[in-house]
C-alpha cells in the first residue's frame, strides 16, 4: 500500500532579519543624516534674504534632518524585503508564517512616533512665536519680535491685479514699487481693496493673506541689499498669474533717495490721498485699523 505524498516542510530560517535591518538602517542614517543636514538643508527655500527667511531655512533643515532616518528606515526595510524575501521563478508559492502581535514593537512604534510629533509641534510653536516667522498674524499679532514698537511700517494693498505700497512715515507716500531699507525690522500691514489676495515676498520669507477690510500684520527683518520677488499667492481672477513684480532691499541712503524722488512724483495726487474716504479720498488709513463697529478706518495712534 502506497503512502500519501506529504508536502516538504520549509527550511527553518534562523537568520535575525530584524537585527540586520536595524544595523543597516543605523549605518545608513549615520551617513545620510549629517550629509542632508549639512549639504541639503541650507539649499531648501526660501534662502537667507531676511532673518525670518533664515529662520525658515533652519526649520526646514531641522525637519529634513529628522525626516532622513525615517526615510532611511523605510528604504532599508523595503530594499531588504525585496532582496531577501522575493520568490524566485523556480520556487513554489508558499504561504508565509502567520503574523502575530508583538507588544514591544507596537510600544516602540508609538513612543518613537509620538516623541517625534510632539517634538516637532513644540519646535514649530517655539519658532513661530519667536518672531512670527514672516507669516500674517491678523490684526492683533501675538508673536512680536523684539523692538516691534519702533518697526518701520509699510502698508501692502492688494487689488485686482496689482500690489501697491504705502509708507506712513513718509506722509502716506504710495508706490507700485516695494523698496525697503536694509537691516530694518519692517511691520507689514497687508490688506485688499477687493477680493482675497495673498502677499508673498518669496526671498524675504513673508506670506500674508490680503483680505478686504482686514489689517493682516506680518513682521520681517531685512538683511543686506537684495532683489526679491513679490507674487500673489491666492487665485484672484484673470490676471492672478501676472500679479507679480520685484521688490528691493537697499541701503538707507538709497532708500531715502528713492523716497524723496517718489515724494516729488506723489505730490500731485497727495491731496486726494489725504482726504477721508467719505470725501473721496483713499479708502484706507496710513495704517489700516477698522473702527470698532464699522465706520471709516482709523489711523493708529503713535
Amino acid at each position, binding site marked *: 500500500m502506497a503512502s500519501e505524498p506529504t508536502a516538504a516542510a520549509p527550511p527553518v530560517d534562523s537568520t535575525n532579519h530584524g537585527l540586520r535591518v536595524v544595523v543597516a538602517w543605523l549605518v545608513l542614517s549615520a551617513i545620510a543624516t549629517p550629509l542632508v543636514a549639512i549639504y541639503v538643508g541650507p539649499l531648501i527655500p526660501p534662502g537667507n534674504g531676511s532673518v525670518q527667511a533664515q529662520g525658515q531655512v533652519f526649520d526646514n533643515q531641522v525637519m529634513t534632518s529628522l525626516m532622513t532616518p525615517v526615510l532611511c528606515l523605510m528604504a532599508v526595510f523595503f530594499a531588504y524585503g525585496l532582496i531577501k524575501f522575493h520568490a524566485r521563478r523556480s520556487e513554489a508559492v508558499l504561504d508565509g508564517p502567520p503574523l502575530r502581535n508583538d507588544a514591544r514593537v507596537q510600544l516602540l512604534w508609538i513612543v518613537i512616533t509620538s516623541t517625534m510629533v510632539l517634538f516637532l509641534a513644540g519646535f514649530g510653536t517655539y519658532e513661530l512665536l519667536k518672531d512670527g516667522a514672516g507669516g500674517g498674524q491678523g490684526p492683533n499679532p501675538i508673536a512680536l519680535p523684539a523692538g516691534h514698537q519702533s518697526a518701520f511700517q509699510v502698508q501692502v494693498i492688494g487689488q485686482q491685479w496689482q500690489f501697491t505700497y504705502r509708507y506712513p512715515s513718509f506722509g502716506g507716500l504710495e508706490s507700485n514699487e516695494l523698496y525697503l531699507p536694509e537691516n530694518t525690522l519692517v511691520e507689514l500691514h497687508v490688506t485688499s*481693496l477687493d477680493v482675497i489676495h495673498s502677499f508673498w515676498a518669496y526671498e524675504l520669507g513673508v506670506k500674508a493673506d490680503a483680505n478686504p477690510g482686514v489689517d493682516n500684520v506680518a513682521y520681517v527683518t531685512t538683511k543686506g541689499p537684495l532683489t526679491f520677488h513679490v507674487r500673489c499667492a491666492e487665485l484672484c*481672477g484673470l490676471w492672478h498669474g501676472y500679479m507679480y513684480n520685484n521688490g528691493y532691499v537697499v541701503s538707507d541712503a538709497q532708500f531715502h533717495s528713492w523716497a524723496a524722488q517718489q515724494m516729488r512724483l506723489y505730490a500731485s495726487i497727495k491731496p486726494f490721498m489725504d482726504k477721508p474716504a467719505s470725501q473721496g479720498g483713499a479708502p484706507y488709513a496710513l495704517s489700516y485699523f477698522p473702527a470698532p463697529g464699522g465706520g471709516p478706518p482709523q489711523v493708529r495712534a503713535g
Partner: protein
Amino acid sequence: MRVGVKLLLVVVAVTAAGVLIGFYVSNLTTLAGSPAYSVPVSGTPSHPVVYLKIQTVPAVGPKLSQNPDWVSYLILTKSGWKRETVWNLPANATVHVTDYNFDSASGLRNPYLARPQGIVGNRVLIDGKPADHIDPNSASHTFAVPALGIIVAFPGVAANAKNQCGAAPCTLAMAHTTTQFVFHTTTPGHFRWQCFVPCAAGWIFGNGGPMQTIGYMDGFLNVKA
C-alpha cells in the same frame, strides 16, 4: 497583455497627455490664435513710431459682441473700430496713444492710480490740456500695463452731458473726453494690460464679465523685435 506592454502604453499615454497640456498652456499664455492687431509702424527701423487710437465705450453694442451691454475698449484699424485688445507693437518704439472715452465716471478704488505714471513726462493731455493727475472720482477707465509701470486714468463724460453714446459705434460728435499720452516700448516681451476702474456694472465688485475677459477691458501688448 504583458506587464511591460501595459507599462509602455501608460508611459506613452502620459507623455502624450503632457505634450497636449503643454501645447494648450503655451497657446493660452501667448494667446496664439487670438486675434492680434499689428499696429501700423512709421518712423525709421531704428526709431519706430506707432500711433495707437483707442476708445472706451459704455456698451459695446450688438454689432461687435454677443455681450452687447459689456463695457469695452475698441481700437481703430484700417477697417474701422474693432474689439481687439491684443496688439502687436515694435520693440523700442515711441507709442502715441489717443483715447476717446465715451463712458461716464465710476471712480477709482485706489485714488493713487489717478496719477499718470510710466509715460513720457508723467503727464497726459486731457482735451488738449496738460495734466499730471485727474480727480480719482472722475476716473472712468484706466489703461495700465503694470509690468511696464504704465498707469493712465481717463476722465469720464459728465453725467449731464448732452448727446451721450449709449452703445458702440460711438462717433466723435458724441460726448467724450480725449486723453493723449506717449510711452516707449521696451525690449521684446508679452505684457498684459488692464483697466483698474471697477467698471463692469452689474458684476460683483465691478470686476467680473468684461473686466475678466480678454477682448473687452483687458489685453496684451506683444512687443516684438
